């Protein structure tokens, strides 16, 4: 019989039992009556012969009980009573545990949602990102994405592969949408055929793109994101078949993607087919991210081998135009480096999160140590009670179990409060969105996180309950009963457990404070870096795109941009204005190409080093505060005259010609039919990819060029230097200024440079804040721990101190004695902490900048801080020791 049915049939069983016993008695009585006895006599006889009916029933029932479970329930109710009777102890313990578990559950739910949960696609484990590196391509190291795919690569891979179910490429962009409300710039994802099929997510409404819509001059269609559909169309399902005017051309809306659908980690408003013109493709054009779905059972190594096999096919099938060497890319040594799509989405945030998780875990350990200390003290006070229980026959196991049940209950109650705290902090985290965390919207406390909190609660309860239980539940009846109620000095041995706990706490606090200290130093070092622009707070940015469907002619595009600049500069409070194809740290996909110098020789079979390039307007460098190192900025008359001029970064000038001034007057170009451009200015290096990344070598082209890659740059970021940057009134005037030039131009990414700069520091600040919180908690708990132990020792040693005073000891001596004890604990803790920190801070090496993991200054400062704080924590109890009245202390006897 299963235990479950047993449990449910128990009541029925008891009823039957009573009935049976009653029948027994009745039968007996009737028999006696039949033999001639009076009914009353017979009834007495029956009961006498039967024995105690109640007891019989009770012991019959007991057969079916589970003694261990029912005893445990008694332990629980006893535990609740003891906890209720010690409200201060319970409150302090609960709070400590709740904060510890809350922090751990919150961080775990982040780790779980970001790192552990699969991506939000069907069978996400089959999805891979088609990464490739090209170690032979000079300059490519600057591009964090490695070598992206070119359209011709995409066709080769899609058509020739043996390992993928489907495969596609995508790229982000922006587009102007008009005709709805105000003109608006939307975030666009351009996709090739095969990409949505690979991701496998069906549209919420409508359909995927058809093959006819994926070729040039086919029907022009668009798919909306769920958010854009809600925002602009109020979630109206009849939107399918309507037109959306993008870049001044109508596109038919054919679908809406479901809520939460994103491209890896990119949010978007609309999806547009790339519609490559297959006949016009060349080898180059490495600008697309590739995603593929592996065939079931295929490994990444097999897929890598498959791509490696197709690379020569790709080089044989396409060219860069007549007269070019098709196999020139062999020198690049292109190597496939396929990785799981999840890894692509997470990026390098994994390490950061594990460091934070580890840190918070250590805080939990410190909290447990504190509560264990509390429990030790309390169990000691309850020694007499436990001894009496043992003397009355309670088994050793029963007492240990009782204590453990009590501490586990404390842990569980703390866990419940902790989960509440975790809910609040996760909500806060998701709304503030620090650290550019990937998958931010997916972060929530799910069943796994709740399970984690439960396990953590029980484990921590066992952890801090086990030590006191083992230490005091061993019956020492005679000793304890005799000494109960008398104040004897406690033996050294009995202090050892508490001292060990305190030493451990100090050591752990040391490690956490050192980590926090290293992050502070990192942050300082990052702030000290000259980013290549000044006073980001007062640099107003906005992005404007002029599509060729709106303005066809290149020079007119530049003239409109120039006109906007003039209007902006005329706004009161604007000191200067300029534009650039992309501000530093804005995070758009970079533009790069081979750059040739006139006075250098390049072999026909190799490719010149790849360089990042941008387009800048006259006056931009001055506006951004990028220092001119040599030469001058270009002028508008040079721009309109199509004078071949160019500016470069200082590190590029040094690399090519030794000094910045030597670069002035030299000539550069991008491809062979482009005129040589004269270097007229050299500007300081700019941290394009974030403060902690090396400043890349840069080329700055004019916005309008003859025979350039593009005749005019159409999407640019405008920058204005003004003390009014960011204020609402100022932005209104900015919008009016732009629309007075052309009312069809939407303004996008309106923000100050400070926001961009802050975002690039976000990961470091997030780590700093998290480790700072952990460090502060560790310090506080550590202080409480030391204070508790020292003041408890002092109160236990009152009699001894009284004797010492009576024998002539001075107050100062006693103060010293107590302080020395505290200092010893702190020093041992710090010593252990130093060793542990040497090992552990290595793990956060990659999060540091401008400081080593063994920074002596940080180590020394933290050590001094901890010892001082420990002494302070000892000072108050030592004052009490000094004030002990010997008469009173001795009279306790």
């Amino acid at each position, binding site marked *: 019989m299963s235990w479950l049915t047993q449990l449910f049939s128990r009541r029925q069983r008891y009823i039957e*039992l009573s009935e049976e016993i009653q029948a027994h008695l009745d039968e007996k009585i009737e028999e006696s009556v039949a033999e001639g006895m009076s009914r009353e006599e017979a009834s007495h006889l029956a009961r006498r012969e039967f024995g105690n009916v109640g007891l019989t029933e009770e012991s019959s*029932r007991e057969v079916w009980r589970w003694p261990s479970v029912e005893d445990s329930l008694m332990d629980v109710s006893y535990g609740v009573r003891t906890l209720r009777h010690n409200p201060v102890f319970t409150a302090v313990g609960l709070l400590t545990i709740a904060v510890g578990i809350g922090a751990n559950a919150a961080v775990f739910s982040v780790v779980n949602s970001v790192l552990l949960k699969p991506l939000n696609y069907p069978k996400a484990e089959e999805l891979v990102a088609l990464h490739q590196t090209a170690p032979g391509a000079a300059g490519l190291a600057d591009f964090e994405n490695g070598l992206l795919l070119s359209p011709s690569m995409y066709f080769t891979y899609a058509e020739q592969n043996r390992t993928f179910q489907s495969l596609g490429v995508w790229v982000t962009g922006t587009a102007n949408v008009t005709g709805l409300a105000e003109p608006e710039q939307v975030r666009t994802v351009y996709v090739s055929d095969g990409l949505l099929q690979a991701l496998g997510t069906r549209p919420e409404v409508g359909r995927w793109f058809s093959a006819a819509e994926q070729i040039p001059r086919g029907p022009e269609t668009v798919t909306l994101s769920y958010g854009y559909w809600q925002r602009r169309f109020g979630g109206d399902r009849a939107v399918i078949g309507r037109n959306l005017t993008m870049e001044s051309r109508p596109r038919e809306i054919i679908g809406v993607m479901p809520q939460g659908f994103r491209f890896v980690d990119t949010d978007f408003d609309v999806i547009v087919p790339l519609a490559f013109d297959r006949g016009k493709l060349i080898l180059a054009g490495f600008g697309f991210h590739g995603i593929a779905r592996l065939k079931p059972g295929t490994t990444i190594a097999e897929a890598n081998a498959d791509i490696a096999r197709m690379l020569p096919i790709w080089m044989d099938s396409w060219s860069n135009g007549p007269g070019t060497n098709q196999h020139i890319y062999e020198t690049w040594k292109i190597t496939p480096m396929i990785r799981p799509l999840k890894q692509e989405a997470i990026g390098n945030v994994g390490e950061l999160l594990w460091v934070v998780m580890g840190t918070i875990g250590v805080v939990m350990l410190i909290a447990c140590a504190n509560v264990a200390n509390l429990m030790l003290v309390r169990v000691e006070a309850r020694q007499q009670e436990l001894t009496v229980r043992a003397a009355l026959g309670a088994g050793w196991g029963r007492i240990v179990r009782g204590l453990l049940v009590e501490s586990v209950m404390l842990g569980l109650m703390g866990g419940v409060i902790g989960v509440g705290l975790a809910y609040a902090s996760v909500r806060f985290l998701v709304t503030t969105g620090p650290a550019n965390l990937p998958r931010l919207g997916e972060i929530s406390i799910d069943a796994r996180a709740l399970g984690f909190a439960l396990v953590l609660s029980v484990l921590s309860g066992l952890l801090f309950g086990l030590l006191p239980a083992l230490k005091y539940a061993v019956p020492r009846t005679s000793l304890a009963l005799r000494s109960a109620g008398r104040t004897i000095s406690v033996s050294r041995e009995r202090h050892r457990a508490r001292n060990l706990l305190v030493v451990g706490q100090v050591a752990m606090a040391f490690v956490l404070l050192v980590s926090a200290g290293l992050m502070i130093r990192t942050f300082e070092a990052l702030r000290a870096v000259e980013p290549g622009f000044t006073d980001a707070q007062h640099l107003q940015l906005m992005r404007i795109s002029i599509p060729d469907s709106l303005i066809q002619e290149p020079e007119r595009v530049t003239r409109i941009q120039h006109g906007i600049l003039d209007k902006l500069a005329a706004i009161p409070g604007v000191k200067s204005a300029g534009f650039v194809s992309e501000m530093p740290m804005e995070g758009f996909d970079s533009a790069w190409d081979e750059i040739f110098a006139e006075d250098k020789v390049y072999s026909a079979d190799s490719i010149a080093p790849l360089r990042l390039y941008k387009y800048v307007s006259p006056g931009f460098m001055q506006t951004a505060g990028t220092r001119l190192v040599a030469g001058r900025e270009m002028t508008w008359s040079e721009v309109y005259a199509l004078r071949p001029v160019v500016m470069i970064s200082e590190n590029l000038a040094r690399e090519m010609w030794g000094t910045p001034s030597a670069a002035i007057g030299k000539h550069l170009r991008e491809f062979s039919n482009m005129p040589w451009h004269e270097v007229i200015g050299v500007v300081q290096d700019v941290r394009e990819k974030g403060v902690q990344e090396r400043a890349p070598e840069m080329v700055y082209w004019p916005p309008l060029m003859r025979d350039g890659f593009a005749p005019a740059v159409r999407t640019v970021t405008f920058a204005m230097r003004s003390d009014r940057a960011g204020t609402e009134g100022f932005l209104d005037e900015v919008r009016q200024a732009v629309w007075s030039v052309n009312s069809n131009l939407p303004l996008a990414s309106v923000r100050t440079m400070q926001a961009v700069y802050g975002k690039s520091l976000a990961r470091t600040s997030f780590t700093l804040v998290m480790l700072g919180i952990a460090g502060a908690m560790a310090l506080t708990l550590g202080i409480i721990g030391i204070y508790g132990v020292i003041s408890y020792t002092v109160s236990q040693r009152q009699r001894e101190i009284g004797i010492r005073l009576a024998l002539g000891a001075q107050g100062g001596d006693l103060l010293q004695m107590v302080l020395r004890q505290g200092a010893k604990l702190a020093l041992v803790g710090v010593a252990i902490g130093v060793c542990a920190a040497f090992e552990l801070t290595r793990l956060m090496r990659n999060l540091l900048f401008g400081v080593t993991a063994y920074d002596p200054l940080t180590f020394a400062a933290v050590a001094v801080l901890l010892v001082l704080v420990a002494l302070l924590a000892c000072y108050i109890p030592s004052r009490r020791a000094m004030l002990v009245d010997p008469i009173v202390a001795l009279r306790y006897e």
Partner: protein
Amino acid sequence: MKKAAQRDLFPGALEMMILRMLKRQPLHGYALVQYIKRTSRDLLQIEEGSLYPALQRLLKAELVKAEWGVSSTNRRVRIYKLTAAGAKHLEREVSSFERMLEGITRVLAVGES
């Protein structure tokens, strides 16, 4: 009130006797007690109530099973039956009890032969 001559049964003795009785025929509680008393010719004074915890233990160990039925006096009673496991258990208990009894008897018989 027990007389001095009477002594408690050893643990398991009552269960053994119950199983033995049930081996002959299924019985209800009252009948079981009467049979045991009668068969032992009242040498064993059994408190009738003690039968019931013993029966519950046997039920739990699945050595007997119980069904509601009607007694000879037309009363609704629970009738106990020996299970296969119960029969096997009885055999083992009886043989181990006989060995024990023989041992005790031999020791008590020392010097009389």
